[in-house]
Structures are given as structure tokens and as C-alpha cells.
């Protein structure tokens, strides 16, 4: 469960303060599939960064699973990112010098898991995301779809309760994008909360709940009754 109350985030451009988020109140229940849509500069990525504990709000409070996490230490927030949150980025953000398997293994290394256990989990993930044949290839040797699958495998290897996807199909063609969305939606079907930030209205409408943003404010928040 994610609960944001009166969240504000201001950036300063010279002497001028720009509200990236202005008094955001949002509650996302566990297992929800939410899309956040809006034009560039609407604050949707900033909202995702705050939910993902990559950014700190200037005001307001943030609770996750009934725990106030706004004022946690950097180390505690890193632990939450490691254990409860998985990120999927538009530009994949794979480490170029590491192989697919090594990229997937990174969160497990950070968690301090023993090597043998890591290898077993990485093999399972490679199997699950049909990357077994590409395990020892570097990102430059992978297609866009394969790269995003590696990124999703990395995001889910720790079995997080929340997946945050920022324009996950932005660098992929339509068909590969659809395949990637299916992968993410499959994760949602296993009970993972899925929050997708997108420009793409068609993609956004796949979510059960669509949040519309403009100028740092939530304008619309619709739940699709069909789901």
C-alpha cells in the first residue's frame, strides 16, 4: 500500500520556484495496476521518483505498507528500494560492460546474498524471461526487446511488491512494446503493484486505474470498472 499526503516538490530555476508536484494526495492499494499519464513537465516522472524513493519531497508525507518512510535514513530507504521496489526505465539502464546475467544479478549482490543462491535465482530469471541463450551477452549484443527483458528480470529478481515503470516501451517498436507490457502485466497478475508512467494513451488505458497529471497536480483519477 502506498499513501502520499500533501506531497510537494519544488525545483528552483534561477530565482524562480517551479512546482513539479503540488499538494499531491494519492493512495494506491497493494496489487493495483496504475498508469500515470500527462504531458511533458506535468510531474509524472517526479511523482514516480518520489514513490521510488529516488527523490525526496519538500513537504508532505509518504507511507508504504502503513510505515512512514519520508524521514527514513538514506540506508533505510536504500533497503526499501532494494527489497520492495523494482524499476524499469525507458532507456533500460543496463551496465554496458556486464553480461545479461551479471546485470540481472546486481540487486542480489547489493543485498549480500551468497553467490550460489544468486546463481540459482539468476538462472530461474533467465529461464522465465527467455534469456537463457543470451545470458553471457553484453547489452550491446542484445536487441531492444531483450534489453528491456533483462531490465525487467533485474527489477523483479528480488520479488518486489511494487514495480515502477517509466515509459517502459518508449524505446521499443509497437510489437516488442506490447510483449514487454504483457510481461509486466503478468507480474501484476502475481500480485505485484504495477505503476506505469507513460505518454502513450493506449498504453495507459491498459491499466486498471488511470491518473492524469498536469502542472504538478493530479487532474483525473479513474478506475476502470471492467477490471
Amino acid at each position, binding site marked *: 500500500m502506498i499513501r502520499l499526503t500533501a506531497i510537494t516538490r519544488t525545483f528552483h530555476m534561477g530565482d524562480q520556484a517551479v512546482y513539479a508536484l503540488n499538494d499531491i494526495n494519492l493512495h494506491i492499494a497493494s496489487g493495483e495496476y496504475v498508469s500515470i499519464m500527462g504531458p511533458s513537465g506535468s510531474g509524472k516522472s517526479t511523482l514516480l*521518483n518520489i514513490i*521510488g524513493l*529516488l*527523490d525526496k519531497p519538500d513537504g508532505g508525507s509518504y507511507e508504504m505498507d502503513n510505515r512512514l518512510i519520508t524521514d527514513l535514513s*538514506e*540506508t533505510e530507504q*536504500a*533497503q526499501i*528500494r*532494494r*527489497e520492495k521496489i523494482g*524499476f524499469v*526505465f525507458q*532507456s533500460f*539502464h543496463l*551496465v554496458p*560492460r*556486464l553480461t545479461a546475467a*551479471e546485470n540481472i544479478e*546486481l*540487486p542480489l*549482490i*547489493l*543485498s*549480500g546474498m551468497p553467490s550460489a543462491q544468486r546463481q540459482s535465482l539468476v538462472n530461474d530469471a533467465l529461464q522465465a524471461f527467455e534469456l537463457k541463450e543470451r545470458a553471457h551477452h553484453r547489452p550491446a549484443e542484445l536487441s531492444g526487446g531483450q534489453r528491456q527483458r533483462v531490465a525487467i528480470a*533485474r*527489477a523483479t529478481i*528480488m520479488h518486489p511488491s511494487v514495480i515502477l515503470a517509466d515509459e517502459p516501451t518508449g524505446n521499443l517498436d509497437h510489437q516488442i512494446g506490447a510483449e514487454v507490457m504483457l510481461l509486466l502485466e503478468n507480474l501484476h497478475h502475481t500480485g505485484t503493484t504495477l505503476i506505469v508512467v507513460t505518454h502513450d494513451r493506449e498504453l495507459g488505458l491498459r491499466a486498471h486505474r488511470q491518473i492524469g497529471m498536469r502542472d504538478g497536480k493530479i487532474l483525473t483519477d479513474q478506475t476502470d470498472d471492467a477490471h
Partner: protein
Amino acid sequence: MTLTDTLQTSFKTVVSYRVRSLLIILAMALGVAAVVVLTALGDGARNYVINQFSSIGTNLLVVLPGRAETSGSFLGAVLGQTPRDLTLKDAQLLGRLPQVRRYAPLNVGAAELSAANRLREVTVLGSTANLIPIRHMKLAQGSFLAHGTERNAQIVLGAKIANEFFPRSQAIGQRVRLGDNRFLVSGVLASQGESMGFNTDEIVIIPIDYAQALFNTTSLFRILIEAKSHSEIESAKQAILATMRQSHDGEDDTTVITQDAILATFDRVLQALTLAVAGIAAISLIVAGILVMNVMLVSVNQRTAEIGLLKAIGATSTDIRRLFFAEAVWLSLAGAILGFLLGQFGSLMLRLAYPQLPAWAPAWASIAGILVALITGILASLLPASQAARLDAVKALGKK
């Protein structure tokens, strides 16, 4: 993140940036190698000098006329007196001291040596049979002032002199002319080469009485004394000074130089020289450290997105700092080890090129070189590591 994982991950990073890593390692290695080679050179020179001094005798004291220290009042000087010469009587007095194992009075001069239609100028040492053992000389053939022949006009030739005058025949038993006197060759010195700038292969040794007659003098150039043991050198020195004072009517007009004192002086000078060159070489390590810092700062800039990603997937600032820190440790360690090996190789080359120079790097220099490289590398990584750890995750992820 465990320590093992930190070390493994950073090792992979070092290996993956081959050219960059090799350049840093090379810079570090050259610094360490410079320390090792230069200290090997300095220490080699020091040991060379010590060996040279040791080769001229053991527990040696040299008595020479005149005072080597400044005195407040010397009545003799006021009266126009000069220091008294050393005489054979003085040498005999010193030989009776309980701390003295043996003594050799010494006169040195030059004279013309002729034999077998050959002629050359030679350095002549006049002494007694004790000169040979005191000065660690060795006779290849014959003897010098053997028992029963003490009064004979005999001469010992240096190896080169013997070879020059009697290339095809036995030198022993031959007659030679030195100055106006005829001598019978009783021995030939073994070739020992140059020692303290004094080539024993090109000298001749004759009995002290004949030398004093040859050079028309009753005084001695030096008295060489060998103390019974190393621990008795100082007491022997005091006893010699006391005996000479008594012999010279209460005047302190004799100087005693101990081998230890000369050695200690050279040792201090050459040790200071070794330290100085090590210090100069260490500067190159600091330069290498600055290079490490520079390259790592560039690396942080190049890997900003990667650092952002690591933060996004749960790395703490401490994890990031440790990763960069561990990279510096690997680079410095590799540089230090390679430098040590290069330094040892350089020292070996020096020893092969100059066999008489024992160019072995002292252990302290090798350890110090390696430690300075490690510390410099680690210190140089602090700023880049801290910069990486402080990066804002959102901004870092946004960087292409």
C-alpha cells in the same frame, strides 16, 4: 553488499577498463620501481664502501702523527714545536699493549724497480711480516720475513709487478734492484685488485728498516694496529693515546683513527643519500596518485548513469564509496606489485652490469615503496569515491 562482492565487483570493473587501468598501474609501477632501483643503487654503494673498508682489515686502528682535534692551548705550538714523528720505538711500545693482537709500522714511498732489463716506478710499502695479515693481504707464492730471515733484504712483489718483470719465469728467488739496493724476491702477492683506491697488484713490500734507509727517514708514516676483539677497539684507542702521550712527554700529538669511526661516517653519508634518492622517487608516487585521482574523477563522470542505476536498485552511498575505494586498492596493489617486480628486475640488471656493486634494494625501501603506492592510491580515491557517493540518483539516471 559483502566485502567479497565489493572486491569482486570492483575487480571486474578494473579489468573491463583495460587501457585506463593499465595506464594507472604503469604510473604506480614506475614510481615503486624508481624507489626500489634507486634505493638498491644507494644501498649498493653503501655496502660497496663498507666492503672496501672491511677488506683492509678487521678491528683496525691507524695511528698517525699530529692532532686531528682543535685544542684550546698547546704549549708546544706556542714554542714553535711541531708534532713529534712516530718511530719504531713507538710502534714497539704500542705492540705491548694488552688490547693489541698485532701491529705493523708502515712507511710509504715511491722508488724505481729494475730487473731483467725492465724498469718502472712502484709504490713501496715498508713494514713487518704482520702487515700481510693485518691488511688482509694474501701471498700467492713465497713468504715475507719468514722466521730466521728477518734481517734479509727481501721483497714481496704485487701480482701485476711480478707478471710484468718475470712473465715467463718464477719470480721467487730472483734478484731485483729497488733504488740503490738489491733485494731478493721472497714472495708474490695474490691478485686482489683495487681496494680503497689502492691497487695492491702494483705495490712492493720491503722490510721497514730497508724502507727507512731507502727513504732516508727514521719516522713512520702510520702504525697499523689490530685490536684483539671488536669490543676492545675503544679501550685500545684510549690505551694507545695514553701510551703516546707518555712517550711524547705528555703531549697529545697523535691521532688514532678507528675503522669503525670511518665506516660510521661513510654509513651516515650514504644512508642519507639513499634516503634522499628514495624521497625523490617517492615524489613520482605522489604524481601517480594524482593521476589516479584524475582518472577516477573522469571515471565517475563517465559512469554517472551507472552510479544512478546502482542507487535505484538499492545501493547505499557507502556501497558506492566502497566500490570506488576498492577499485583504487586493486589499481594501487597491482601497480605496487608490478613496480616491485620491475624494481627487482632493474636491481638485477644493475648487479649484472656492475658485479662489484651489491645493488640489492633494502627491505624497508621495498615495503615503503609498496605502502606509499597503496596509501597514495587510496588517498587519491577518497575524493572521487566521495563525489560518486554524493551523486543525486535522479540526476545521475538522467545523464546519458
